[in-house]
């Protein structure tokens, strides 16, 4: 692993934040959202602000841009010095003049961060319209220049495109072009790659690094992903609950974290090294999928649309007690497969057998009694439980459908709550009273209450912070050991797949490109796409949990 080793001795800071405190508007008594944050960024330096959700990373960046939502948050103390000017002293007009010229920002979600009804070229040009007075021709030339600089292909066409006509990566390049066209001293990047696929993420990270080197920009980079930190940071700031926990140069922090919280955070990062293979006793297959195919949007009357093959010729088998991971980037068809298997959508062709029972062709009503054998846990813990139902009611819904006695089902629900590590009084509470991780546990308990043979986990940990992710993965593992459930684990995250899967199936554009044991797929990928995926995983050479290089362990 090669870390940045640039030295910033003696370089004056571009941005210094001193003792910044942010509180809830009109509620001075409440606990501050940011509590006495101080740090400096120097020219050419990349400072990574890491922390879990709610740690105050984004609030810090918005405070610096002067973009805090006034009705909710306000700065209550401290200074934000850009070079020597305190941004907090500026009025609205002066602050607007600063933006884009001296400091600019790139946001997480490039789809929503661009105005959907305006051509992207104009959106970049608007920066020039606002801040400089040059001829229209010059403006256009400068826009095309910066678009070239961010390596957009066919700039003339893209200049005239709308955001929805571009890919996620291209949109983020537009955002970067927009942020850097006036060569500001400071670029704030708020999770700029989180919404992107790994391969795109890699390109964007190197683009930022390239432009930074070229213009000597100071970068405040906000992320929750330790892999990204390892790739790009010069300096790292760890935040927790609005306070700074630890600050250090990147290598120091990763090798030798001082604070418990930092250590915990790092230890929770799943390793790319596959779990040790479990012995494979010849057990019966819990789920067998043969030649599964799903086609969307056939052409109908007066509708002439090219049908999309969301999944083609997908076949696999999961023995009882084992976990199969399906990995792939967005649009690879992995979720389609999961939904077909659950019969939430009807497969176009192919066979899905749970045990010996063919469910792909059963009618809705005929299928219902057999549903209990195969259950699902969804990605979004906030939407997968009915907000109006108590946890207990959600937990017994399935058993009651199977004709179980209500009292018995409630007793069992309590046991399940204990099993997933929640207090027994949770049964009378409502979902909003729980955190995301807790809700995901409830969702798992609800699935497990049906005593299924197969559990489908569709990105079940993707929305969770790493520490919580770690706990949920452990829970799934435990349950599998206790109950012998077969798990179909859908994820885009190779690290997670490595931690939980026995076998891994890689999908690209609806096709299976590689299917082998986890060790083989991750350790010795055959297909170029798999190789590219692994290649792109940030920080893939570092063993975060053990604070050392990965190969150090094998060496």
């Amino acid at each position, binding site marked *: 692993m090669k870390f940045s080793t640039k030295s910033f001795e003696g370089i004056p800071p571009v941005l210094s934040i001193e003792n910044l405190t942010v509180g809830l508007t009109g509620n001075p008594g409440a606990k501050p959202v940011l509590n006495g944050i101080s740090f400096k960024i120097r020219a050419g330096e990349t400072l990574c602000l890491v922390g879990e959700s709610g740690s105050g990373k984004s609030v810090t960046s918005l405070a610096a*841009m002067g*973009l805090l939502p006034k*009705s909710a948050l306000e700065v209550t103390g401290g200074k934000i010095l850009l070079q020597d000017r305190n941004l907090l002293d500026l009025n*609205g007009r002066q602050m*607007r*003049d*600063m*933006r*884009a*010229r001296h400091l*600019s*920002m790139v*946001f997480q*979600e490039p789809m*929503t*961060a*661009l*105005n*959907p*009804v*305006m051509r992207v070229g104009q959106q970049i040009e*608007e*920066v020039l*319209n*606002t*801040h400089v007075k040059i001829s229209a021709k010059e403006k256009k030339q400068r826009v095309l220049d910066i678009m070239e600089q961010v390596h957009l292909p066919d700039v003339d066409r893209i200049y005239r495109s*709308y955001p*929805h006509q571009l890919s996620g990566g291209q949109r983020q390049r537009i*955002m970067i072009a*927009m*942020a850097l066209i006036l060569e500001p001293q400071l670029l704030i990047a708020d999770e700029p790659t989180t919404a992107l696929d790994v391969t795109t993420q890699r390109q964007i990270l190197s683009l930022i690094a390239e432009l930074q080197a070229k213009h000597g920009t100071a970068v405040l980079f906000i992320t929750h992903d330790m892999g990204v930190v390892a790739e790009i940071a010069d300096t790292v700031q760890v935040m927790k609950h609005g306070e700074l926990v630890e600050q250090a140069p990147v290598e120091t922090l990763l090798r030798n974290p001082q604070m418990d919280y930092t250590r915990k955070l790092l230890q929770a990062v799943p390793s790319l090294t596959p779990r040790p293979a479990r012995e494979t006793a010849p057990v019966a297959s819990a789920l067998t999928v043969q030649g599964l195919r799903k086609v969307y949007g056939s052409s109908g009357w*007066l*509708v*002439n649309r090219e049908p999309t093959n969301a999944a083609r010729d997908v076949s696999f088998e999961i023995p009882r007690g084992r976990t199969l991971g399906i990995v792939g980037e967005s649009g690879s068809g992995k979720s389609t497969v999961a939904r077909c298997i659950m019969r939430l959508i009807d497969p176009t062709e192919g066979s899905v057998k749970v045990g010996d029972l063919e469910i792909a062709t059963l009618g809705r009503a005929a299928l219902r009694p057999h549903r209990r054998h195969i259950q699902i846990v969804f990605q979004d813990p906030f939407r997968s439980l009915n907000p109006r139902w108590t946890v207990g009611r959600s937990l017994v819904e399935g058993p009651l459908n199977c004709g179980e006695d209500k009292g018995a089902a409630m007793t069992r629900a309590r046991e399940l709550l204990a099993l997933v590590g929640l207090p027994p009084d949770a049964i009378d509470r409502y979902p909003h009273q729980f955190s995301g991780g807790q809700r995901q546990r409830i969702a798992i308990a609800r699935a497990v209450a049906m005593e299924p043979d197969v559990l489908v986990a569709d990105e079940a940990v993707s929305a969770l912070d790493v520490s919580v992710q770690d706990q949920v993965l452990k829970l799934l593992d435990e349950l599998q050991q206790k109950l012998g459930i077969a798990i179909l684990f859908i994820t885009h995250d190779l690290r997670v797949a490595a931690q939980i899967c026995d076998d891994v199936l890689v999908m690209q554009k609806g096709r299976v490109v590689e299917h082998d044991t986890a060790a083989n797929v991750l350790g010795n990928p055959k297909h170029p796409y798999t190789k590219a995926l692994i290649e792109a995983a940030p920080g893939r050479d570092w063993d975060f949990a053990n604070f050392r290089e990965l190969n150090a362990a094998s060496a």
Partner: protein
Amino acid sequence: MIGYIFRRVLAVIPVITIVAVFVFLLLRLTPGDPAAIIAGDAATPAQLEKIRTSLGLNDPLPVQFATWVKHLFQGDLGISLISNTSVSSMIADRIWPTINIAVLTIILSVLLAVPMGVLAAWRHRTWVDYAVMSFSVLGFSVPVFVIGYIFIQVFSIELRWLPVQGYTAPSQDFAKFLSKAILPCLTLATIYVALIARMTRASMLEVLGEDFVRTARAKGVSETVVLFRHALQNAAVPILTIIGTGFALLISGVVVTESVFNIPGIGRLTVDAILARDYPVIQAMILLTSALYVFINLLIDVSYSLIDPRIRY
């Protein structure tokens, strides 16, 4: 796009058919006899019966319906039972006041309401917002005719600025048209402004919370540009929708306003026709307004793609 429009137009057919059957049946099952209205106070039952027969009202319902539909396809809306003139010429005579007033009202409403809504959303939870919201709730809460009377009392009777009533065609005397149309338009606009301002505000509030607005602000552009160049266009689709569905509201307003200000438009024509059981006129008017409603909303749906490049049919 063409295909989409074609499909949408096809989808109009069952809607209009149902409207036609519904209206026809509704009217024929209504107690009420145009013959009695034609004949006046002193007619005897035998005389009424003769008039009914001569009007074709004694034919079996399906026959009457078939005759009506057949004529419809020939572009003939029938003959008014009461005035014995062709319905199409009656409508043609009286549709222009309504259209002129309605168009002026919509223009006026949009010009007033959109800035109000934008301002309210921008200054969310300030007195500006509360003032706009109060106005828009108030606009919904006072019956149209009361608003009309208040305007007449204030502007025509007390201040004597504007005429009390009437209508002059703009082609005849545009200044007179404006002076007579202003009060009815303002009256009609009250509820429409309320509606559009509300929707503009709600839609703007939503859009102002979007990331790209933050992006625009991060670029340092002024608030005016943020509001009107970035946010408004994105907020426009629901605003347009409400203008379309508000058309129904406009119709009901028109019916009342035409009575208050004595404008010889189709609103009064229809109400008079209903009260006089002039079946061909009622059928034609309801069919026409329904078709107009469907058509306007079709037009608005199609116009979405002009505003939002993401929408393609």
